[in-house]
């Protein structure tokens, strides 16, 4: 799928062809001005502090979900320390609803490579890995091809463009584990182990990959770097809104007429994105939206319709900006069934290390499952609140919170629907309406 629509695009500008990926090769990227920024930085020996300051000015916030300011994160790296230091790109995109990094890698892999090389230069890193989600093998192969091109052209490797700066970059292919998107699990995975998150502190900037200083950033974050430096931090910030710099690639899935990726400025009203995405499928009524990937709290229609798409507005509405992945649900959706599927996911994907998450996610699933199947008990909502409350904040990584938040928010906003289920032993939305509402979606209809 190509990018389906844009407003004032930065990252996706110039993507070519019906599938958006006709211009993924090195020659095309260079023709679009690619690698000029890396070349300029190396030729002018631009001071690394200056690059980090520019990224800070842009107020680029990490696109992987947590929204941590990228420039600040980069400043934590001990640049002067000798020995190996790493930049790691997180393309493990497994957060349900999120599919932007796949398209960025497919359509513009060299922007990631250039962004990583600049990041490495700014942080004094000499090696890097791009960790790519297991299920997108074809994209992984493409990234490897792009790496070969970049290596041959001298944009990565030893003594890049004769500058004396060296940066070795490789791709690491995941093999099916959502938790490896969590940055320390990802590092364990590159080390050839089970993907079990590490305690923090120590943070990766002091003890990361192979125990060396490491910075992990999301694909979209890193791919944005060349463009930010080209237009200047100030201009990038102004392209969005204060405290929410730049543009963002939003993944829109579920009950819309035109699901897909859309790049629009931060702070664009949700209603405008919904319109770009062709509106609610079949002209039906919007019921709810999960605004930031499946781990973010669900928002009922009236709340999301008031939101602009930026960190501040979404969190004020009671949810999280997350990865910028909007899962749209219309009036044919049974909220209990939707939550049941998500709860199964977190239960399946818990790494099993922390008892509250390993056991708790199982409990959450079992209870939602029995409500959905007409076996709910009067005190089940209390049980769910209790179990969810005992996971959140009590685990090594945020997967536990990610499992708890959907449960808490679904019950908060759709309590009557859960109660109806428990009392009447069936869905509020008739089964045949649900089934028809989520039928095969054919584009162009």
């Amino acid at each position: 799928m190509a990018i389906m629509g844009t407003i004032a695009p930065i990252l996706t500008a110039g993507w070519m062809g019906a599938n958006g990926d006709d211009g993924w090769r090195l020659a095309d990227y260079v023709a679009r001005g690619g690698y000029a920024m890396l070349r300029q930085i190396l030729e002018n020996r631009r001071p690394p502090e200056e690059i980090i300051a520019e990224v800070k000015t842009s107020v680029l916030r990490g696109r992987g979900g947590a929204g941590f300011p990228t420039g600040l994160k980069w400043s934590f790296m001990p640049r002067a320390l000798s020995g190996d230091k790493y930049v790691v790109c997180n393309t493990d995109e497994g957060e349900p609803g999120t599919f932007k990094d796949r398209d960025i890698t497919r359509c513009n892999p060299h922007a990631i490579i250039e962004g990583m090389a600049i990041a490495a230069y700014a942080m004094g890193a000499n090696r890097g890995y791009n960790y790519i989600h297991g299920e997108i093998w074809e994209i992984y192969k493409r990234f490897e091809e792009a790496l070969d091109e970049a290596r041959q052209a001298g944009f990565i490797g030893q003594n890049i463009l004769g500058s004396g700066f060296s940066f070795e970059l490789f791709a690491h292919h995941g093999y099916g584990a959502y938790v490896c998107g969590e940055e320390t699990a990802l590092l364990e995975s590159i080390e050839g182990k089970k993907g079990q998150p590490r305690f923090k502190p120590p943070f990766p900037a002091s003890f990361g990959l192979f125990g060396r200083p490491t910075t992990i950033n999301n694909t979209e974050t890193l791919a944005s770097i060349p463009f930010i430096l080209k237009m200047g931090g100030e201009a990038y910030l102004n392209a969005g809104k204060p405290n929410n710099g730049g543009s963002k690639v939003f993944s829109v899935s579920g009950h819309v007429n035109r699901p897909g990726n859309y790049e629009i400025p931060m702070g664009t009203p949700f209603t405008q994105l919904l319109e770009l995405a062709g509106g609610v499928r079949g002209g039906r009524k919007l019921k709810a939206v999960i605004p930031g990937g499946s781990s973010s709290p669900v928002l009922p229609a009236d709340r999301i319709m008031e939101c602009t798409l930026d960190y501040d507005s979404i969190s004020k509405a009671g949810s999280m900006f997350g990865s910028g992945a909007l899962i749209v649900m219309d009036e044919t959706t049974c909220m209990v069934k939707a939550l049941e599927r998500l709860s199964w996911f977190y239960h399946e994907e818990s790494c099993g290390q922390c008892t509250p998450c390993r056991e708790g996610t199982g409990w959450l699933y079992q209870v939602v499952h029995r409500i959905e199947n007409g076996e709910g008990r009067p005190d089940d909502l209390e049980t769910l609140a209790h179990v969810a409350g005992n996971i959140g904040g009590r685990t090594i990584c945020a997967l536990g919170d990610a499992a708890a938040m959907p449960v808490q928010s679904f019950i908060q906003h759709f309590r009557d629907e859960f109660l109806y289920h428990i009392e009447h032993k069936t869905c509020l939305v008739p089964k045949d309406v649900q089934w028809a509402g989520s039928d095969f979606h054919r584009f162009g209809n």
Partner: protein
Amino acid sequence: MMFSAETLRKFNREVAKYPAGRERSAVMACLALAQEEQGWLSPEAIEAVANYLGIAPIAAYEVASFYNMYDLKPLGKYKLTLCTNLPCALSGANHAAAYLKEKLGIALGETTADGRFTLVEGECMGACGDAPVMLINNRHLCARMVPEEIDRVLEECA
């Protein structure tokens, strides 16, 4: 157990991605390549990968059993992994599951009597805009699995 020269060449290429002394990092890739060559990961294959990398067999087994895409049991010639997570489900994944079950005459988790197809449920593949999506043999991701597309894709699986 011996792997083909081609597979060993690919093993070497993977090991070279990591610093000296960090051969263990290549275990995920080597297990995937071993599985690609042999169709599944037998205990012997896992041990052979471990020996090749100079790590304890249990360390390789731990990895093979942790990640979802390794197959520790033999399965059909074509493994069909259908994503049924919420975004796909909102765009027909459950309909696709019903269609596949009917067409192949098997339930989720089963293999057809002729040993050609195994049908399993998967989690989000990071391709929800193309829903419903299905992955064939861990390698080929198929978009928009409406009935005609499912028919076409299965026909290509000779």
